[in-house]
């Protein structure tokens, strides 16, 4: 039982994050539907028609919709459909953590040394995740039920329960695959890459299948199997065989993963390559960047920086690929037109300025939070002690960290701006390059603000700082998104840190607010330097 409790404890952060996102989406979307869909049958029919057009543009992200003129259909498509990818990501992180991450940290070795059998250990991890997932899925579907009731169009609990059974099957299947992938590699990073990569391929098969492609092999994708369930819509039901297939797949992969874990050596992959006889090296690395301040920090982060520099421009290009159709469709929908006008999104440029740049600053703040997490890890894992025992001042350590953060942010922002400009030209959207450059450059103020806050907090409470910054980012994003949607007073939206960034691409540049953003970063940096100078290291 102790082992099971430990397994529950190890999975709590991911479960809380997934649960919060799931519950927020499941409550917010029914309320949004009540606001936007209209009340008369004619308004509903028009809304459903326009949303169907929109949905065809969004099959990359969401399943095909059914019955969009109803609250149940909207929940299935917009609320629960959006959670497929998010929950799958959570499952990959949890599966790779259980299968490899805790082994990297030495926890597995410790537990096995206490006389716990490998089979019992892995069974406890799987059972704990199954229990956690059941709770998260139940709460999410319950939140959807509450949301639909608040929207005065309640969805039957039995239908929500059936949807939950299908969703649970999908998440468990993804977890089992990630757990199996973790047996084939030696690091958690490798497990995430392999498991996440495999699931991405399976997801893309489901995406292709949404437009009637991949007919001969779409059944291999758990996402496609899940997409075939429509228990919420009128006349729809749970697809028994396909849902059973999800659970059977989960069972097979967990069984194989467990057997692999029992068979393999700790710290080694299931299939080990024979060691190669290589010439030992006794010289330091020739990489010149490692010896140059700031560039050394960036050099150490080169793989993750490369990933950020690839993913954000790819997202920008993807966003532009559907911007024209999306804006046209939404403007043609009376209720959405009201929303767009209220949010100042009446044309392509303002849509890109608000929606894309709103997303960009959120992603950049996540980049800054990830760096803050790295600073906390430097401290906890003893690297800071090694650095601080060299002839470098503590002030330099903080300044170098922040400089590397801004330099990395600048590389990402520049690549994203280029992708945006090229994408706009390709989709024949007239976008002011100068404004894009300005908006992109000013986005660095958000990176600086989050970096400064991170530097200020990480010396005192490393883990708490990361969690608080994450909460600030998520709350700020939703405040900005939901305030115009629900007609909240302007000061509510202004509570968001992102409100200080404003909309420099399609609106006026609010220099005082941007100055405040830079001021937050500067004050945070000064506090960060003072904290670093005052604190003990390596206690």
């Amino acid at each position, binding site marked *: 039982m102790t082992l099971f409790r430990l397994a529950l404890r190890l999975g709590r952060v991911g479960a809380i994050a997934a649960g919060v996102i799931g519950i927020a989406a499941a409550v917010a979307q029914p309320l949004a539907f009540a606001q936007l869909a209209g009340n008369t049958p004619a308004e509903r029919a028009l809304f459903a028609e326009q949303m169907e057009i929109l949905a065809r543009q969004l099959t990359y992200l969401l399943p095909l919709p059914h019955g969009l003129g109803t609250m149940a259909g909207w929940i299935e498509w917009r609320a629960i459909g959006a959670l497929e990818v998010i929950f799958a990501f959570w499952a990959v992180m949890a599966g790779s953590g259980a299968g490899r991450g805790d082994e990297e940290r030495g926890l597995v070795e410790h537990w096995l040394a206490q006389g716990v059998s490998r089979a019992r250990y892995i069974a406890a991890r799987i059972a704990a995740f199954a229990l956690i997932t059941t709770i998260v899925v139940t709460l999410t579907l319950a939140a959807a039920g509450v949301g639909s009731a608040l929207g005065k169009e309640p969805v039957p609990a039995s239908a929500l329960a059936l949807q939950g059974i299908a969703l649970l099957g999908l998440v468990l299947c993804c977890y089992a695959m990630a757990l199996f992938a973790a047996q084939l590699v030696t690091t958690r990073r490798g497990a995430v890459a392999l498991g996440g990569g495999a699931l991405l391929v399976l997801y893309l098969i489901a995406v292709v299948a949404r437009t009637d492609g991949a007919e001969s092999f779409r059944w291999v994708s758990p996402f496609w199997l899940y997409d075939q369930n429509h228990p919420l819509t009128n006349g729809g039901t749970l697809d028994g065989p396909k849902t059973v297939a999800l659970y059977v797949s989960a069972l097979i992969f967990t069984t194989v993963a467990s057997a692999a874990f029992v068979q393999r050596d700790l710290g080694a992959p299931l299939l080990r390559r024979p060691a190669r006889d290589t010439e030992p090296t*006794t010289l*330091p690395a020739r990489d010149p960047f490692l010896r140059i301040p700031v560039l050394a920090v960036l050099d150490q982060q080169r793989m993750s920086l490369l990933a950020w520099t690839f993913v954000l421009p790819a997202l920008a290009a993807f966003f532009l690929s559907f911007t024209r159709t999306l804006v046209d469709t939404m403007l043609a929908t009376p209720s959405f037109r009201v929303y767009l006008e209220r949010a100042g999104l009446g044309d392509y440029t303002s849509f890109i300025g608000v929606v894309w740049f709103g997303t960009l600053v959120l992603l950049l703040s996540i980049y800054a939070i990830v760096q803050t997490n790295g600073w906390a890890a430097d401290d906890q894992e003893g690297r800071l002690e090694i650095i601080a025992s*060299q002839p470098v001042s503590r002030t330099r350590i903080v300044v170098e960290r922040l400089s590397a953060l801004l330099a990395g942010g600048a590389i990402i922002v520049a690549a994203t701006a280029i992708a945006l400009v090229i994408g706009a030209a390709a989709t024949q959207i007239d976008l002011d390059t100068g404004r894009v450059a300005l908006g992109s450059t000013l986005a660095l103020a958000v990176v600086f603000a989050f970096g400064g806050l991170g530097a200020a907090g990480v010396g005192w409470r490393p883990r708490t700082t990361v969690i608080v910054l994450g909460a600030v980012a998520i709350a700020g994003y939703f405040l900005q998104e939901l305030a115009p949607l629900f007609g909240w007073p302007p000061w509510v939206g202004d509570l968001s840190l992102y409100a200080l960034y404003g909309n420099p691409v399609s609106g006026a540049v609010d220099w005082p607010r941007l100055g405040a953003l830079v001021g937050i970063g500067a004050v945070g940096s000064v506090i960060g330097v003072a904290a670093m100078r005052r604190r*003990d290291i390596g206690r």
Partner: protein
Amino acid sequence: MSGAPPAIATLALTKDYGAHRGIFGLDITIGQGEVFGFLGPNGAGKTTTIKLLMGLLHPTRGTGTIFGLDCERDAVAVKRQVGYVPGEMPQFGGWRGAEIVAYVAGLRGGVSDAVISSLAKRLDLDLGRRYREFSHGNKQKLLLVLAFMHRPPLLILDEPTGGLDPLHQQVFYELVREARNEGTTVFLSSHVLSEVEHVCDRVGIVREGSLVIVGTLAELIGVRVRRIEIVFAGEPPLARLGSVPGLEKLDVSDHRVTGILRGEVEPLLEAITGQRVVDLHSREPSLEEIFLSYYSGSAPTG
């Protein structure tokens, strides 16, 4: 050397964590070129002292200087003079050993690749491998390379041989001896008494946050402490033995009496005068026994 500042000097150096944890009122002076062993049981305050000297911890009271520079105020200048092995292994994940060395050498500046290569060869360390693939001993070797690579005038080493096999422990002792021959001062925290005997000129023993004794090995061994064993033909004169100054831990078994005698032997001989003694042994305790007596608190302080 007489005009040169000491390599390390502390004055009432204190780090108080509360609940009697930390180091209290440490006064110690270590001359240039000395190899100083710092001993004590776990939790005695050895690592805290070392981190205070390195400027990683801020003292609650008192000061520490290295070559006349304040450990806290002149921390950067101090660290130019110091090579450091921490007591706990850092984690460098997937970095290669060569990358770690290059990065730290870059922070320090002016490090010779030839010295790094020579150290790695002597310690039989392949820098091409990833840190996470290193054994415990190889991680320790990497830390030794980082400490010795810039040929510092002072080495501060917190249990530097942990995880090293006997062969590479010998290499480490050679490195320390060579460094000493070049005038380097070494401050070495250790649990390994043979290590202290091998390389240290002077030893300080710390217990429960306080320095209990400092001296050369010869002084410590030469402290007038003897283990005494006397076998009497008749009943031992316990009353007279009990009044002998410095005779402690008396243990009587039939006609055999054992104990520890601190100080002069003459009062003991006077006490047993007139008794028929069958056998008498007096021997110096081993270095280990001396350390254990200080560790366990049975030895006098000062």
